[in-house]
């Protein structure tokens, strides 16, 4: 079924009381929809309200107002059958430090017992790339390996939706790439994935769609290619003429350069053509010009 919704949020708000500032609005009216089978990234700086939003979706936090549905269920109105809903979702929390004295296999196999239709623990361990560490105590794992275990525990129940809260914070580049491959593979197998990140490149590499969130509000929702109007942003052409730096913005830079080439009949002094990078656009969006 195409375009079936896995997550629907409308007009979601949440505030916290803080001693210094009084009431602080962490989520200030968010609307978004996640389609079944996509990787949806919530991108934003630290403190933008990403984790609060996701924890409301996961059923950990209450909300002040708005409507939320995850797999058709309001996470704030879970009744006695909440297990049936949790049976269909997988959660990878921001940071964990538990089960230090157990081995990887013991932990993954144990968690499989919680679900009605679990994946094969040995296969899950292999999928997250922890085969060599299967008998190692969790306390001895590196940060990246520990995170892979978190994902293993998140997917052992064969979830329809997987929540990933800043999954690669603290990874080295190689581990991140391997991790991204794993997430893509899960998506290809049909898992809907909602991921929060403050890494622009992560959202760009993984997400089918990105929501940029700043101060609890969504600034834009788009595919990574179209984010911030990057696809039709004007290019900046600059050169030196009579000792003065000249600059024009244009939709058709090639034509501009051809005209210049005619005028200068040869090399154009200090010619440069700059398109805004995704990073420029993102930084502008989150207000760090």
């Amino acid at each position, binding site marked *: 079924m195409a375009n079936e919704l896995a997550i629907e949020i409308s007009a979601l708000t949440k505030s916290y009381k803080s001693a210094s500032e009084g009431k602080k609005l962490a989520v200030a009216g968010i609307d978004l929809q996640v389609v079944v089978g996509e990787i949806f990234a919530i991108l934003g700086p630290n403190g933008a309200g990403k984790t609060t939003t996701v924890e409301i979706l996961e059923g*950990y936090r209450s909300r002040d107002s708005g409507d939320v549905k995850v797999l058709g269920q309001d996470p704030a109105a879970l009744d006695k059958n909440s*297990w*049936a809903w*949790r049976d269909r979702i997988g*959660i990878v*929390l921001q940071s*964990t*430090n538990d089960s230090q*004295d157990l081995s990887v296999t013991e932990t993954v196999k144990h968690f499989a017992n919680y*679900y009605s239709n679990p994946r094969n623990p040995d296969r899950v361990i292999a999928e997250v790339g922890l085969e060599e560490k299967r008998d190692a105590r969790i306390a001895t794992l590196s940060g990246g390996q520990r995170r892979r275990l978190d994902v293993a525990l998140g997917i052992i129940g064969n979830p329809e939706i997987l929540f990933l809260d800043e999954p690669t914070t603290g990874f080295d580049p190689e581990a991140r790439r391997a991790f991204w491959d794993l997430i893509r593979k899960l998506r290809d197998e049909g898992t809907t994935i909602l991921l929060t990140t403050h890494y622009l490149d992560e959202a760009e590499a993984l997400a089918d769609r990105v929501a940029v969130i700043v101060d609890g509000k969504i600034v834009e929702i788009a595919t990574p290619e179209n984010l911030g109007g990057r696809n039709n942003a004007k290019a900046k052409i600059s050169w030196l003429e009579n000792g003065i730096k000249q600059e024009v913005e244009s939709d058709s830079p090639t034509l501009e350069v051809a005209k210049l080439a005619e005028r200068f009949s040869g090399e154009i002094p200090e010619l440069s053509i700059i398109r805004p990078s995704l990073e420029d656009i993102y930084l502008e969006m989150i207000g760090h010009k």
Partner: protein
Amino acid sequence: MRPNIIKVGFLRGGLEIKQFMRQRESVVFTLLFPVMLLFIFGSVFKGELAPGVTFSQYFVAGMIASGLVNTGFQQLAIMIPIERDFGTLKRLRGTPVSPISYFIGKTIVVFAAMIVQIAMLIGFGAALFDLNLPTTFDKWFRFTWLILLGSACSTILGIAFSSVPKNGRGASAVVSPIVIILQFFSGVFFVFTTLPFWMQQFAAIFPLKWLTQGMRSVFLPEDFATQEVAGNWEISRIALVLIVWTILGTLLALKTFRWSNK
């Protein structure tokens, strides 16, 4: 089909026992500490309290009772806040696992530790201090229900009290003094009747005093009962106090239990 809650509880129990055994400090302090105390007190106080009743006999009864408090109440009231800090509980909350399975797991690990501890106390007591074991069926029966009821009470109060410490780091500082003071007031380290009246009255509010008294009724001769405060063992009152505290603890635990530290 939902996985069976009881079965998952037992699986959690097995896992918790495994984790417990792998933490050397907890094994040493929870299991060996009472035995070390017995050794110290038994070596220092060699006299008899009454004809045929050595101090170590009196003390073993007290140590078994307070062992139930250590492995149940103290261990859980400290461990659960630490598990909150580590995210263990938050992770479990995000799975379909039932809180009842979690509680069953805790009860099993506590119970296993208690049985080992009691066996060691009795074993060392018999080997080193000529501890007399109960000889009648009645006393063994009473010993059994005291252990079951005492551990249930201790476990559930530990879960209930785990909501009091704000976080794992401070838990030990909040919980341990309470346990130590109760042990002094309840006649674990000293003969209860030699304590000041107000101390006895205070201790009588809490279950440890009654549990200790019950254990004395198992390990001390029948006629020693005349030296108790009431002049007898007050067996039915002991059962009543433990049951009331267990019910109270269950209500509290259900009302106050939380999955994460704020």
